[in-house]
């Protein structure tokens, strides 16, 4: 059975979202149609406002509504200590630990030839420009431990070290409170490689 055109359109648009299949798109569409008046409008306005007001920070390329972003404006955060991450959500994750007092650089992805993504498609050139301006004391590579995240870290290390920068990579290993015998061999091997003198 075919729905009236506006419903079809809505389902189609929702279906384009990541993780939303046709069934879920249909359910969301009906939820929105049956929601109390005003709710759908609020959602629509929130989407529009986010699209209109959010842009990249001109320094770290995180999302912001105010350029430079709050972190890049904060004078107590060391501008010469730079952590490179793949996505804005990684900044949020890192901020939760309250340990890192430097600043970020968001690449917006990782190198993945099978998806046609190379360094040109990431904020790499912007990173180099920035590093030449601030002469950093340390660059922390915090891309994910996936194959693509590792390759991206290797690429950046290969690029930055010859320029004379100090480059570090976040460690991989055991989760806190984790049992050794429940840890897969790969993680254990990495934890062993990264062991430290006490």
């Amino acid at each position, binding site marked *: 059975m075919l729905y009236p055109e506006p419903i079809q359109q809505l389902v189609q648009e929702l279906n384009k979202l990541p993780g939303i299949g046709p069934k879920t798109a249909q359910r969301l569409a009906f939820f929105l149609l049956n929601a109390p008046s005003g709710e759908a409008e609020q959602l629509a306005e929130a989407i529009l406002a986010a699209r209109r007001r959010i842009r990249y920070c001109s320094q770290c390329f995180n999302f912001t509504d105010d350029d430079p972003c709050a972190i890049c404006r904060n004078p107590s955060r060391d501008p010469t200590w730079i952590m490179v991450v793949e996505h804005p959500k990684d900044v949020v994750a890192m901020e939760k630990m309250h340990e890192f007092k430097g600043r970020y650089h968001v690449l917006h992805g990782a190198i993945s030839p*099978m998806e046609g993504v190379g360094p040109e498609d990431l904020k790499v050139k912007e990173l180099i420009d920035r590093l030449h301006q601030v002469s950093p004391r340390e660059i922390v590579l915090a891309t994910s431990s996936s194959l693509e995240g590792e*390759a991206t870290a290797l690429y950046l290390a290969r690029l930055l070290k010859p320029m004379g920068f100090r480059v570090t990579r976040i460690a991989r290993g055991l989760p806190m409170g984790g049992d050794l015998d429940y840890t897969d061999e*790969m993680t254990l091997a990495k934890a062993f490689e990264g062991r430290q003198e006490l």
Partner: protein
Amino acid sequence: MALEKVAVQHFRNIAAAELRLSPQLTLLVGANGQGKTNLLEAIYLLLQGRSFRTTSEREAIQEGWDSARLEAQGKVSGQPARWVHVITAARPSHQGATVPVVLFAPDDVYLAKGSPERRRRFLDLLLSAHDAHYAKSLRTYQRALLQRNRALKQPALRSVVDDFTPLLAHEGLYLWQRRRTLLSSLLPLAQSLHRRLAPDDALSFRLKEGGWSSPLESAEAFQAALESRRREEEARQMTLIGPHRDDILFALNGKDTTVYASQGQLRSIALAIKMATYEWLRQETGIRPVILLDDVLSELDARRRQAVLELTAEPGQQTLVTDTEARNYETLDPTIYYVQGGVVR
């Protein structure tokens, strides 16, 4: 190890079937193309979590339906056990212990003669099923290989080829090490079984590492080897060294079987390898593997048939056999099902 009950729904040409299996021999009888092998595939999927026929399980859903469901009950090491495998358009879901299975199939004869891909698949199926580290390593390797090959194909991405090399080398070394260990454990087992089947021929086999003349012992050596063939890699736009190009070299009396072996000799090699696999799995897992004989006994001469049947006759050895007729098995007191057009009675 004993499977007691197996239920199959909307799997290939089988709409619905329920089987109660003998703890020894169960016989599936029917003409060709009726669904006997589909039942063996279902049992293999339940016990191993993957198919021996396809990597795209979706194609095994019966036409006109959107999911297939396989279920089994039985005992593993004396404890009640249950298996469920559901195939849908999304990723298949699997529950249940992995239990060793050895499948004897008509195309085993190509193991020592056909394409190297068949031999790599034999190694991967066997190692992945019982070694989670190998399975994971293989997946990572294959993805690193795909990324590296794509980078070699696109001139704009050539600069990142080497960023996938260390990961490729790391996983590749592990795969090589496991494959070599497996083959050297199988070798003496297969040789002694083969002597019984073909006393005049001395069997040997070993891993031939893909794209390089001698085993590469370290990630650095692997990377240096790749480096030395880089120009050729760029010209051919693919990674030229690594486990994805491995082969197993089989020889009878020192002569390469892909060139010299007869059909009968290939059959003896295949049987010896499969029976060696059975022994190896039994030692590794401590569980007696389930034997699946897919239409192979009718092809064998008396001596080879005898060797296989001796294995199935051991007390507590669960075996499923497909055949076009039942009369060869009367003395073995099998449970018999007749399969016709996807219907099992």
